[in-house]
C-alpha cells in the first residue's frame, strides 16, 4: 500500500512543476469559459428562463466549475500507456512487484490532485466576479464534491486506459485516441450539459459511464439533490471499468512481444 502512496505523491510532485504551463492553461480556460458561458446564457435567454433545468446562474456555475476541472479530469488525449506498449517500456511496468494498473492509476491520481486547487479556485473566482456562481452553503457539499471528483478522475483515467490498451492488439492507436476524445468531450457533458441533449441522445448517454466522468462532479458541486445516487453510479461504473481493464491487460499481455533487452 505504501508503494501506491509514494506513487501518488510522485505524480503530484511531477505535475505541480509546470508553473508557466499552469498560467497559460488558466488564461485559455478563462477565455473558453467566457465563450461557453456567453453561448449558454444566450441560449437560455432566447429559450425563455430555463433550459434543461438550468437558469443563467446555474449555467454559469456549470461552465466555471467545469473549466476548473479540466486539469484534474483527463479529457484530452492521454496516450502514455499506448506509447509504452509501442516502445516496449511496458515490460518494465509488468515486471514491477505491484498491481500493474494500480501503479498507473496512483500516478494519475497524484497528477489529478496537483491540478485541483490551482485550476479550480481561479476559475470559480473569475466566474464569481463575472457571470456569477452558486456554490454549496454547507461543508458536506464540498466533501461530496471531492469524492465525486476523485471518482470522475479515476473513471476518465480508466476510460483512456481501455483505449490505450488497444495498442496490445493494433499497432497504431492515434486515430482511436483522437476519436475517443471527441466522443468523451460531448457525452461526458464538457461541451453542453447532458440535460440539454435531445431526448434520444440523453437517454442513450445515461446508459454509459460518460456522464459520470465530468457532469457528475459538476452536478454534485451544484448541490444536486441526487448527489448520493450520482456518486453511487460513479462507484459502480468504476468497478466495471477496473474489471474490463484488468481482463484486457491480462489477455493482451499474453500476445505482447517486446524485442531487445
Amino acid at each position, binding site marked *: 500500500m505504501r508503494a501506491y502512496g509514494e506513487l501518488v505523491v510522485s505524480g503530484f510532485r511531477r505535475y505541480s512543476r509546470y508553473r508557466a504551463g499552469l498560467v497559460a492553461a488558466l488564461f485559455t480556460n478563462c477565455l473558453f469559459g467566457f465563450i461557453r458561458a456567453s453561448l449558454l446564457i444566450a441560449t437560455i435567454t432566447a429559450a425563455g428562463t430555463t433550459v434543461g433545468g438550468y437558469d443563467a446562474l446555474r449555467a454559469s456555475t456549470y461552465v466555471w466549475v467545469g473549466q476548473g476541472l479540466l486539469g484534474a479530469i483527463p479529457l484530452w488525449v492521454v496516450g502514455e500507456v499506448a506509447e509504452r506498449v509501442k516502445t516496449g517500456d511496458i515490460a518494465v511496468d509488468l515486471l514491477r512487484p505491484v498491481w500493474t494498473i494500480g501503479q498507473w492509476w496512483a500516478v494519475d491520481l497524484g497528477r489529478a490532485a496537483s491540478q485541483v486547487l490551482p485550476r479550480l479556485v481561479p476559475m470559480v473566482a473569475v466566474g464569481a466576479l463575472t457571470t456569477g456562481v452558486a456554490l454549496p452553503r454547507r461543508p458536506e457539499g464540498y466533501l461530496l464534491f471531492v469524492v465525486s471528483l476523485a471518482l470522475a478522475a479515476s473513471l476518465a483515467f480508466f476510460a483512456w486506459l481501455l483505449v490505450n490498451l488497444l495498442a496490445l492488439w493494433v499497432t*497504431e492507436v492515434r486515430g482511436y485516441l483522437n476519436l475517443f476524445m471527441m466522443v468523451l468531450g460531448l457525452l461526458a457533458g464538457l461541451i453542453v450539459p447532458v440535460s440539454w441533449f435531445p431526448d434520444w441522445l440523453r437517454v442513450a448517454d445515461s446508459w454509459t459511464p460518460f456522464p459520470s466522468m465530468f457532469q457528475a462532479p459538476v452536478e454534485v458541486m451544484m448541490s444536486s439533490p441526487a448527489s448520493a445516487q450520482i456518486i453511487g453510479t460513479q462507484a459502480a461504473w468504476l468497478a466495471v471499468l477496473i474489471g474490463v481493464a484488468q481482463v484486457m491487460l491480462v489477455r493482451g499481455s499474453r500476445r505482447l512481444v517486446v524485442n531487445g533487452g
Partner: protein
Amino acid sequence: MARAGWWSTVAETLDARPVTGWAMTRTLLGARLRAQASFRGSFAVDLVSQFAASLVDFAELYVLLHNAPVIGGMNLTQAGVVFGLSTLAFGLADLVFGQLDRVDRLIRAGQLDTLLLRPTSLLLQLVTADVQLRRLGRAGFGLAAYLVALAWAGVTWTPANVALAVIAPVGGVLIFGALFLASGSLLFWVLDGGQAGNALTYGGRYVSSVPGAALAAPLRAFYTFVVPTILVAYVPAAVLLGLPLPALLWPPMAWLGVPVGVVLWGVVLLIWRASIRHYTGAGG
C-alpha cells in the same frame, strides 16, 4: 583525363541546379505525402476521426439550437453557414500550418538546431515536415456543410454575394494560418505556453464557428479587433444571408478577411523572425 572530365561534369550539373525554394518544397512535400499514403489503415481511421471531430463540433451548435430556435439572430441553417465556412477555413489552415504550434517538441528534443543549420527557411521546413492529409477530413466536412447550408438558407446570388462566398474562405485560411504562426512564435519565449497559444487558434476557431451576436460584447470586441476570427465566418455569413449585425460590426467588414489576413501575416512574420533570433540552442 576522361575521368576528371566526368567528375567535373557532375560537379557542374550540381552547381547549375541550385535548389530553389519551389523545388525544395516540392521534394519535401512529395516525400511526406507519399509516406502518409502508404499506411492505408491508420490513415483511414485518422480521416474518419477528423470527420467525427467536426461532427461533434457541430453537435454543440445543434444541441444549443435544439433548445432555442434562434440564437444570436440565426436559426440552425443560418448558423450552419457560419459553421461550414469556419470549419472549411480552419481545416485548410490546419492542414498547412497546424503543426507550427507544436514547435515546442522540436525545441525540447533539441531537433530545432538541425533544421536551423539547413540552408533553407525554417518556416518552409516546418510547414512541409508534417502536412497531415488526414486534416482534409475536417476541411471536407466544412466544405460540405458550407455548400448545403448555403443552398438551404436561400441566399440571393448577386455577383457580389458569389464573390463574397468564394473569397471569404481565402481570408479565413490567411487569418487562421497567421494565428498558428503566432502561436508557434509564442513557444520560443514561453516553452510551456502552448495552452495560451490555443486561445488564439482553437479559441479563435470556436468563436468563428458560432453566431457572433450571441457572444457578450467584450468577447466580440476581443475576437474582432485583437484576434480577428469573427471576421472569418460570422460577418460574411450574416451579409450573405442579409441578416443584421450587432454593435461593433458593420456589413462592409465582410470583405475584410483577405486584407486583414495579409496585414496579420506581415505582423506575425516579424514576430516569428524575432522569435527565431531569440532562440538559443542547448548546444546538442
